[in-house]
């Protein structure tokens, strides 16, 4: 009885221990690199939408849990990936960088939206998505479309994006992107606006 358990259990146990240890070591070795890549990717897309800012400080997921909660509520069904204070060279806050992921045709579209202190959208960019090549990808390849979000007033929340038309042939994808910017606007007006001021400096 016991022998059967030992006979079957010990090889599995040994393999599991070795495998887990090996993976743990690999993970420990690559962890920092992956985190750096991740930060770099985020910073890159944030810099695109808020060129004036020199650095971005992410709101801490633990310390500012309430903010994230409120932001998620304001974004309705758009996923909130991160909220960043955008600081200029002197450390003064110039605006906000928001990472949101609305749903497009082929799953979530990860995008960054910048909002300045006047409540104007400074830009929107797409970090990654899985839209249909040639159709959904028009939101990127149609060069004059994304810049149309710049200068948009956020005071109307999710309704602010109404005046931007969707792209023919990429309706679902462009509607997704629009929704993402709308969610960012709503988060800004409902939540972030009140957090501005001293705390960022």
């Amino acid at each position: 009885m016991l022998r059967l358990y030992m006979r079957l259990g010990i090889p599995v146990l040994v393999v599991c221990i070795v495998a887990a240890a090996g993976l743990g070591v690999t993970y420990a070795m690559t962890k920092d690199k992956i985190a750096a890549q991740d930060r770099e990717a985020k910073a890159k897309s944030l810099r695109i939408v808020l060129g004036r800012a020199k650095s971005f400080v992410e709101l801490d997921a633990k310390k500012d849990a309430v903010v994230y909660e409120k932001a998620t509520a304001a974004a309705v069904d758009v996923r909130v990936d991160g909220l960043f204070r955008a600081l200029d060279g002197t450390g003064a806050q110039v605006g906000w960088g928001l990472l949101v992921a609305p749903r497009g045709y082929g799953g979530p579209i990860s995008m960054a939206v910048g909002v300045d202190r006047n409540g104007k959208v400074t830009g929107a960019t797409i970090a990654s998505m899985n839209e249909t090549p040639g159709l959904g990808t028009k939101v990127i390849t149609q060069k004059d479309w994304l810049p149309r979000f710049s200068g948009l007033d956020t005071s109307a929340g999710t309704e602010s994006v109404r005046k931007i038309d969707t792209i023919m042939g990429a309706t679902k994808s462009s509607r997704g992107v629009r929704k993402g910017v709308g969610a960012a606007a709503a988060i800004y007006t409902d939540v972030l606006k009140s957090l501005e001021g001293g705390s960022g400096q």
Partner: protein
Amino acid sequence: MKEWMRVLRNGLSLENPLTVLMIGLCSTLAVSTKLEGAFFMGIGVIFVLVMSNVLIAAVRKFTPDEVRIPIFIVIIASFVTIVDLVMKAYLPSVYSFLGVWIPLIVVNCIVLGRAEAFAYHNTVWLSVADGIGMGLGYTVIIAGLAAFRELFGSGQLQFLGATLVTMPAFYRPPNILLLFPGAFILFGLIIAGSQALNRRIAAKDAAQAASLKEAV
């Protein structure tokens, strides 16, 4: 060494996992929209195949039959995770394209299939050959398919950031090639081609055998 080469060649032609055995199709069709992605996918599969083949062949004497599948699959999954993590850390752009398919190497029938069918019964040395052969067979087909789809579907062929070939301006790339239906139809035609080729080879062999008989 002769035996080693034979096993290696087997994977490339006679037992090519994709066109002959028709296993490991999921990633083939999904990943083959970009040459670069397909290439690194192939590298990942070769790595996982060779390493897991080696390890499984090495521990085959100590593996109880009842739990061999869990043991094989943990070994394979570990190497897949290593590929996953390393690629995430050092090739982020490739990873963002391939990400989904890396974990699915675990359940890629090629890997577990070779573990069961070959590595479990053969020496470490031969298992290496089998891993390389099968992996290369996979890579060649998938990269070829990707090159075709990328070139004719998007109008240009890129590799590691460099544009290799660009179609002339009047060429309007048909989207269907990059979409799923295009992948299926194209792959169907490839198989039709390889079957026709195999048939011709078989007919030639038969003719040769017949003429030999006559000579005797």
